[in-house]
Each structure stands twice: as C-alpha cells, then as structure tokens.
C-alpha cells in the first residue's frame, strides 16, 4: 500500500521536484513525516488527519509513513498538506492511484478541508512541465496564476472533497477566476503630464530610463521627487513576454500574485521605507525569500531619504548594484535572485530640507556637509545621474491641469534609445550604456572634434576624476542615442556635464 505524488519545493525563484510518498503498513498506529522537513511542514500531520476526519474519512489504526524525497532538499512551508492527503488517500485506496499519475499537487489544508493558497505556483508549474507532467492540482485561489503559465492542464481545488471528486470521477470545480486575461499593457494611471514644469527633472528621468542609469534626485520636501520616480517605470519599454514571466516568477515565490493580477504586466515600482531591515532589502530568511531589490527586478527601486537610510543597509546594495543579481548563502545551499533594477534615490539638500532658502533653512554648513556625507562613496559611484528638483512656485501649482510632456512621448524616445543599445551591444555581455566599463568606453563613445575639446576643457577646469570623466561619457552616450546620433557631439557633452553626479 504505497503511493507517490509529485510536488515541488522552492529554491530561489526556481522549483525543485519533491516526491511525496505514503506507505500504510501493519504496526503500532502512527502518522510520521520524514525527509528533511521543517517544523512547520511537520505540522501537516495534524491538519491532514483532522481534515480527513472532518470529511468522515477515518484513518485505520495502522502505521502511516510519509516520506518527502529527495532527502537533501529542505522542505519548508505548508505546501505539502494537499499532496500528503492525496498520497494517504491513494495508499488507502480511497482514490484511484492512476488518477494522480503525471500530476503536480500543491496546497495547504484547513481543518475543515478547505484548501488555502500557497506561494511559488508559477515556477512549480514550469518545473512540472519540464518534468513531463500533464496536469496540475492547485488551490482555487492560485488557479489564475497556474493558468497564466500556459503550460499544463490546471485544476483548481477549493476543498479536499474537490480532490476526491476529481480523482474518483474527473469532476472539476466550476466558476473559478478565468486567469487567461490577455497579456496586454494596462493603462498607466500616473503620467508625467501630471507634473507641471520641472523640465530638467523630466529630462533627467528620460536619460535615466533610456540608458538605465541610476538617478539621484535632490530637492526640498514636497517638490515632487517621489512623483517623478513613481512615473519612471511608465516610460520604460513594456516588458517582453519572457520578462513578464521572469518577474512574475519572483512575485509568485514571494506570494505577491493575486487572483486578480496573476501575472506581472507592468514594470515593478518598489518604494520601501528607509528603515527596512537588510533582509527585507536584499532578501534573506532561513529559507531565502526575495527582498525589495529583487522585487524591483526590471523595474524601479525608489529609495527616499537616502541619507536617513542606515549605512549598513546601503552597504548591502553595493554588490547587487554591481552584479545585478544577489547570492544568498545558507548552510549547505545558496540561492541566486536576479535584481537588475533602476535605482532612483531621493534626498533633501540638507537635514531640514530647505537649503538654499536661507529664510527657512536652519542648518549650518557642517550639518549640510555631514548630511550628504552619510551616503557612502561606493553607492554614489554607482549613480551616474543627479538632478535638483526645485520647489514649485505658486504659478506652477495654481495652473493645474496637464503639462505638454506626456509619458507616452518620453516612452517613444526611450524605446528608440533601447533599440540603439540593443544593436550596439549585440555581441557584448551588457545591455545598457550605464553598464559600459572604462575599457569599453573608447570603443563605443566616439567624440566629435568639438566635443573632445569641450570635454578636455571641462576635465581640466573642473578637476574631474577618472570616474567623473567616464560618467560624463556614459551619460553623453545615452543622450546621443536619444538624438539618434552615433557620434557624441558638443551639446551631448554639455548636458552630460550638468547632469553628472558629482563625486
């Protein structure tokens, strides 16, 4: 009386196959779960026994052993309740074993037999497809997400009784959320035309988006730094189908997909509070889950009040900003989360926020210096662009209405620049101008004669560092791409010099 059911364990953003084996044999009555199970997973025994009893299924007084294989993969969470129940029922011949062949089973049980949703459905379905499985039994609440993978025949189950019905005579629950919503771009409610004036800020946002350059916004409270950052994902080109799946996987593992939004369609925008824990920022936990940097993969990570952020947190950003992935190591295993995000940081010009308005600013020169110095140099080194966001004057506020620059216009320009870069870096391991290394810059950043002279003059007069020099060229490359120019011209250099981050 043995039965094996296929399920999955989550590791990073991937799912690994886990086989849930149940054996019922003679001996002292017991219900044992083995196979590198966590305490939380072991609790499945009580839930399964109770849920079965509440369905009037009484377990025989026999020795029931559940083994979760392979034994070297740690089993976490409550996702094995349903496969354990199914394996026990099959081992007891309450349901036909054949009915679960080639089938993936996942779900948490309530004591009354209702089935609760579990995270990581999307990667599980994709893994099941690779294993050659045909069907997936998932919680009804995860039905839409499972369908969105478009990989398997999905059955959504609301209760343990649904499982028994499906296995016994193939009956499927009806009226589940469809989940096959077209993968269309949703309309962005937030548009750059909501921001009046601030032409230079919009220009900086455009350049940041076009070359995927990290951006620092500095300005007094209420000047619209967050407003601008929030609108940045909307001017990045739409996610491709592969990218949607890639981002959705992350959100699936993090348990952030809902029945209403089973697939991430838009580029993510994450704005965590500056006092969040390092684990919440970069990911972590005993069984590592993605942090904010991974949740903003292919989108925008907005860090407001950057100088207020504990230095330790900022230091954690260094490696991910460099590598565009984060490796989290735990005893015996390590997982890798992607985190290719656009960093938008915001800061006040001084602790009180009103410098240089001396009627309101109460800070001393030293306060201001210390405040800016709180941001560590290695982080600033990764930020190419900087712009000031001045407070709006009354006229701009009062005029209200829409500005002439819209997100759609900016997006068209960004798409053009993306296309330039795609072509240029076809045989390179990089995708964007912001990733250009000092070694590649001479090859990809040809200068016109006047531009060369201007850059030389600026380099000498402003006592630029080598880092500042390369930064100007990377930004100028993007500005030239926006103009559709292969050669970097004088005007591109003068603009890049202004927007460069000084450090």
């Amino acid at each position, binding site marked *: 009386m043995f039965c094996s059911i296929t399920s999955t364990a989550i590791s990073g953003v991937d799912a690994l196959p886990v086989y849930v084996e149940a054996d019922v044999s003679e001996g002292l009555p017991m219900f044992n779960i083995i196979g590198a199970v966590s305490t939380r997973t072991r609790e499945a025994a009580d839930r399964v026994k109770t849920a079965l009893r509440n369905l009037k299924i009484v377990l025989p007084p026999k020795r029931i052993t559940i083994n979760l294989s392979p034994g070297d993969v740690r089993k976490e969470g409550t996702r094995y309740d349903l496969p354990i129940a199914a394996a026990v029922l099959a081992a007891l011949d309450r349901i036909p074993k054949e009915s679960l062949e080639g089938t993936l089973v996942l779900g948490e049980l309530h004591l009354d037999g209702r089935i609760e949703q579990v995270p990581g459905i999307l990667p599980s379905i994709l893994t099941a497809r690779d294993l050659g499985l045909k069907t997936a039994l998932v919680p009804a609440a995860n039905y839409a997400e499972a369908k969105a993978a478009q990989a398997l025949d999905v059955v959504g189950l609301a209760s343990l009784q649904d499982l028994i019905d499906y296995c016994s005579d193939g009956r499927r629950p009806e009226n589940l959320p469809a989940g096959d919503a077209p993968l269309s771009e949703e309309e962005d409610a937030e548009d750059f035309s909501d921001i009046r*004036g*601030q*032409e*230079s*800020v919009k*220009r900086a946002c455009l350049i940041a988006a076009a070359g995927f350059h990290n951006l620092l916004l*500095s300005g007094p409270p209420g000047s619209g730094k967050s407003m601008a950052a929030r609108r940045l994902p909307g001017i990045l080109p739409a996610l491709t189908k592969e990218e949607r799946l890639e981002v959705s996987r992350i959100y699936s593992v993090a348990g952030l997909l809902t029945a209403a939004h089973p697939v991430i369609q838009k580029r993510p925008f994450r704005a965590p509070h500056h006092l969040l824990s390092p684990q919440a920022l970069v990911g972590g936990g005993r069984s590592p889950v993605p942090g904010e940097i991974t949740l903003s993969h292919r989108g925008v990570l907005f860090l407001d009040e950057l100088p207020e952020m504990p230095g330790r947190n900022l230091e954690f950003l260094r490696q991910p900003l460099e590598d565009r992935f984060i490796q989290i190591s735990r005893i015996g295993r390590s997982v890798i989360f992607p985190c290719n995000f656009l960093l938008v940081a915001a800061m006040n*010009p001084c602790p009180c926020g009103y*410098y*240089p308005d*001396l*009627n309101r600013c109460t*800070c*001393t*020169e*030293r306060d*201001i*210096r210390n405040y800016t110095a709180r941001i560590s140099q290695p982080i600033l080194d990764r930020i190419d662009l*900087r*712009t*000031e*966001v*001045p407070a709006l004057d009354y006229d701009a506020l009062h005029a209200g209405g829409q500005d002439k620059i819209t997100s759609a216009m900016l997006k068209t320009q960004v798409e053009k620049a993306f296309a330039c870069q795609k072509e240029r870096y076809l045989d390179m391991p990089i995708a964007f101008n912001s990733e250009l290394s000092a070694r590649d810059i001479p090859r990809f950043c040809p200068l016109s004669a006047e531009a060369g002279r*201007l850059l030389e*003059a*600026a380099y000498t*007069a*402003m006592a630029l560092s080598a880092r500042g020099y390369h930064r100007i060229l990377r930004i100028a490359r993007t500005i030239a791409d926006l103009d559709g120019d292969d050669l970097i011209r*004088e*005007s591109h*250099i*003068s*603009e890049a*010099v*202004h927007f460069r*981050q*000084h450090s």
Partner: protein
Amino acid sequence: MDIRITTVGDPDYPRVLSLYPGMPEKLYYLGNLPDPEKRSAAIVGARACSAYGRDQARGFAADLARNGVQIISGMALGIDSHAHEGCLSAGGKTFAVLGNGVDICYPRTNRSLYRRILESGGGILSEFPPGTEAAPYHFPLRNRIISALSDLVLIVEARAKSGSLITAQYALEQGKDIFAVPGRLNDPLSAGCLSLIRKGAGAALSPSQLLQELGFSADEKGEPAAPPSTSDLTPTARKILHYLSSDPKTLEEIVTASRLPLGEVFKGLLELELKSFTRQSVPGLYVRTYG
C-alpha cells in the same frame, strides 16, 4: 613649532592691547604676532554664510592683503574662514584668534587652513592656555581681542542676533571703525549688517574705500582685480549670466527665467562655468562669481 607666551610688559606684547581695559595678561601664540608697524583689519561674520558672503569675504580680504593689510579673524567656519582664505590667496599674512588653546584646531575641518596660516608667516593666537577645549562662552571673549588687534572691523554677513555683532560692540567700545557689507533687505543673513549700518556703521562698498580709511592714498592702492570681461562670451552665455546672481539658482529656475531651450542653457552654463563666471555652490545650484 613651539607655543610661545607673551605677557603684559614684554616687548613683543601687542601694544594696542594695553590701551584697552579687560585684555588678557598673557597671550599664547603659534607662529607670529601681528606686525604693529602694519595696518590690520578684522573680517568676521556668520558661520552659515551665503555664496555672496563667501565671495565678499574673500574679495575684501584678498584686496586688503594685496596692499599689505593684515587680516585678523576667528577661524570659525563660514565668513571667518573665507576671510583667512582670501588673504592667503593674495599672499598676505593673516592671524586667527581662537576661543581655545592654540594647539587645538577647532573646528577640525579647518586643519588645512590652520596649517597654511602658520606656513605663510601668520599666527594663531589665544588667551586660553594650551589644551583648553573650545567652550561656547570663549567665543564672545576672544572677539574683544580680534577687535582690539585691528584698525578697523568689517562685518560681512550677520543675522539679527549674531556673535559678529558682539565683535562690533567691542569695536565700538574700543573706538574702532566699524564697516558692514550691505546686503538685501529681506535676506536674514544681512539683517545684522543692515542694522549696523542704520546705527551708523560704515557701508563697505569696495576694498578701495576701506584702504582709504586705513590711510592708504589713492595712488598707493594696488590695482583691484579687474572683473573678467564678458565680451568674448557667446550671446547665450551672456543672456544666462544676466539671470545669475549671488542667490543659488537651480537649472529649472534658469530655464524658466531665461525662456531658453534646455539644450542652450546646458551649453551656456558650461561655458560660464569653464570661464569662471559661475560656479556651483552645491552640486546643481549655480551662483554668479564676483571678482
């Protein structure tokens, strides 16, 4: 460098100090004492100064120093430091009177200035014994020495309630000439200076005016640094320069005021910056450079 002590009655004890009541018995100093044969001017002002104050302090100090005037100040942040810097840039001698022991550099961020004052033949003075830490009540006390050592006192920027006004008060009691750099009416950093002018202090309109007050005749004055000519600027740059002032302006404000296209403003600003007509007081904020 050894710390030296001079006591009332010593030949090197500054004679001017013995003229006034309440002066210290002993002075500790590093480097030199001010040369009694030469004229001295005190330049003091706000710690949190504006770009305008910075330029004025440096400009006045440099022009006075070029004519051999010794600049005396308190080495505090802001105007005091800029006055010392201006003097050093013109190759003059400058003296700092501290509110702590002369062996301590306070504020610490002025360590380079502290070193250069001594290297250039100036001096660091204090009435407090070596090792004395700075304390808030020390600073008003040292102001009476700054004023006593000087032939005139120039206040560059001061808020309505400012330590610089204490210096002015001492200067008044000691019968020194007091000058204040005028500022704008609604600028809080000029409130102190303007009220001094209202009470009868001289309005410092140019370094040459102060030089005359110090007894230099018109032909003795060295040529003040000529303002750089705007004639070889491009028309765009000249137009942008028109909108720049000592008030820091963001790019956005310049674009709005000048109604020039963004691209033109970038070109013009870079040209002005490269030719030293403007600088960024903090990244992204442009101020016009004077002199």
